[in-house]
């Protein structure tokens, strides 16, 4: 089997979610080729994908691809699949990977499944487990076409490194103006911070924090933990926090190892965005808040007293 893995980068580094995709593909088996688009990643970084199981990396050095143009990306990935004779494409179910994979599946007449949470069962056909109903359930589905595309959810494969170096090859697909019919005219992105969808630890605040001026203690705790900050929907609706921090059914779905919820009641729509977290800590002054039922650890009390104390205790424990 030949597998293509689409890898994304941020600030010159391959994203962890993409490393997971490479590891996932390597565990499925076969010959693994990664593909990176644009000119922003150094060859040494690409070679390092060998440590995760890629034998080769196709590098598409076209500066029009420094931005994630969905149609152009789909066209490149499809041509790369043809080029290496791939019967499987693996990618992270990211804001770019998801819309791109849908178009590739049509181009390749492939079966596509997104939000895959585990390695496939290939003992009889090719079956995967995927998250459905916003994390409230799973479906085991078989991909019935000869070619397959799978978009994996965070933590579908645990990253591990070994020795190895991938060879980097230039790949020059044919692109036309039509592939760039939609143009990206600006990017506005928080840099340096830990990105919420990819974070290992998330600290979220809700309406219980009373106002945006009180977010200092949430940020302080997050900084101490190297965590990303999140919030409930009403908090972003009223503009206390930016929209991309809104967690839940209609916002970002997170899968960190630790989710700390402060002053959030735990409405079912909020829980839908956090239910694949490994551990959940809830701080709420109402001991009957529904969130405690979904938590592993809880403190019933006033966040304004507890959070600064917790931050101090963590600092001392370092």
């Amino acid at each position, binding site marked *: 089997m030949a597998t293509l893995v689409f890898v994304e980068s941020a600030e010159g580094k391959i994203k962890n979610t993409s490393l997971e995709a490479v590891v996932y593909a390597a565990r499925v088996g076969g010959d693994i080729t990664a593909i990176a688009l644009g000119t922003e990643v150094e060859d040494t970084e690409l070679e390092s994908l060998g440590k995760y199981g890629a034998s080769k990396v196709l590098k598409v050095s076209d500066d029009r691809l420094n931005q994630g143009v969905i149609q152009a990306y789909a066209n490149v990935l499809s041509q790369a699949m043809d080029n290496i004779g791939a019967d499987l494409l693996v990618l992270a179910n990211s804001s770019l990977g998801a819309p791109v994979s849908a178009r590739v599946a049509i181009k390749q007449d492939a079966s596509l499944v997104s939000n895959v949470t585990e390695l496939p069962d290939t003992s009889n056909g090719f079956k995967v487990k995927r998250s459905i109903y916003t994390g409230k359930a799973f479906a085991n*589905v078989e991909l019935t076409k000869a070619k397959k595309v799978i978009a994996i959810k965070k933590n579908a494969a645990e990253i591990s490194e070994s020795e190895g170096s991938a060879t980097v090859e230039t790949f020059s697909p044919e692109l036309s103006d039509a592939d760039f019919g939609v143009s990206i005219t600006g990017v506005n992105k928080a840099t340096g911070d830990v990105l919420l969808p990819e974070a290992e630890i998330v600290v979220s605040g809700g309406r219980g924090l009373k106002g945006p001026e009180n977010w200092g203690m949430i940020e302080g705790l997050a900084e101490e933990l190297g965590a990303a900050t999140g919030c409930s929907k009403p908090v972003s609706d009223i503009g206390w926090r930016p929209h991309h921090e809104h967690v839940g059914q209609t916002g970002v779905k997170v899968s960190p190892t630790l989710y700390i919820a402060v002053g959030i009641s735990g409405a079912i729509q909020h829980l839908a965005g956090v239910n694949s977290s490994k551990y959940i800590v809830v701080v709420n002054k109402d001991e009957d808040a529904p969130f405690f*039922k979904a938590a592993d650890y809880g403190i019933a009390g006033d966040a304004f007293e507890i959070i600064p104390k917790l931050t101090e205790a963590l600092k001392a424990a370092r």
Partner: protein
Amino acid sequence: MKILVCITHVPDTTSKISFTDGDQKFDQTGVQFVIGPYDDYALARAVELKEQSGGSITVLNVGGAETEPTIRKALAIGADDAVRVNADPKDSLFVAKQIAAHAKEANYDLILMGRESIDFNGGMVHGMVGEILGIPSVSPVMTLDVEGETVKMSREIEGGKETVEGKMPLVAGCQEPIAEWKIPNMRGIMSARTKPLNVIEPVSDEVATSLEKYELPPAKGAVKMVSADNVQELVDLLKNEAKVL
């Protein structure tokens, strides 16, 4: 401007999820069905665009007769007519083929969908429809404005957003804050009863996946409460028991 809005008929976000028939079917007992929340945003934006510059809105659903109350609700919110493709939505490819076949005939300027359905959360149908029709697809879209033939959008990316623009026709998968959800008023509800709802048969039964079975996540253990005076205990638990620090 001719707009198509594709809507799903899904369990209300507060529904308890369970399965029947040997975990082969979703258990509908006691479940209230609604327009998918993301599809509802797409519809709300379509209504605003029509208010601004005229045109028409068609809503489409691939589903059995049981989805008609949901379709009527979309008509009450402001769609002009509706199409129901009379079939069980088997998978995203199946749905995309139906939508694309209808759209090819009807020549829409804009095809608005939700960023994802909240039952299968595929987030795939819009991209598939765009590819089948050979037109751009953009998702997840947070704002969308039309200036002449140009559609200006912002698209959410990890940790921020990007501004994008393209020419019509195109497909967009919508999410908040593109528009405020709209609640149908009495006049809307009355007029929805007589607006056309055309039922058409599927054009193909091609699928790309087959369901083995559904399953529920393992039940969560009981919460361990820590006293508010003893945050140190929480730090110890996180460190030594959960081993997450």
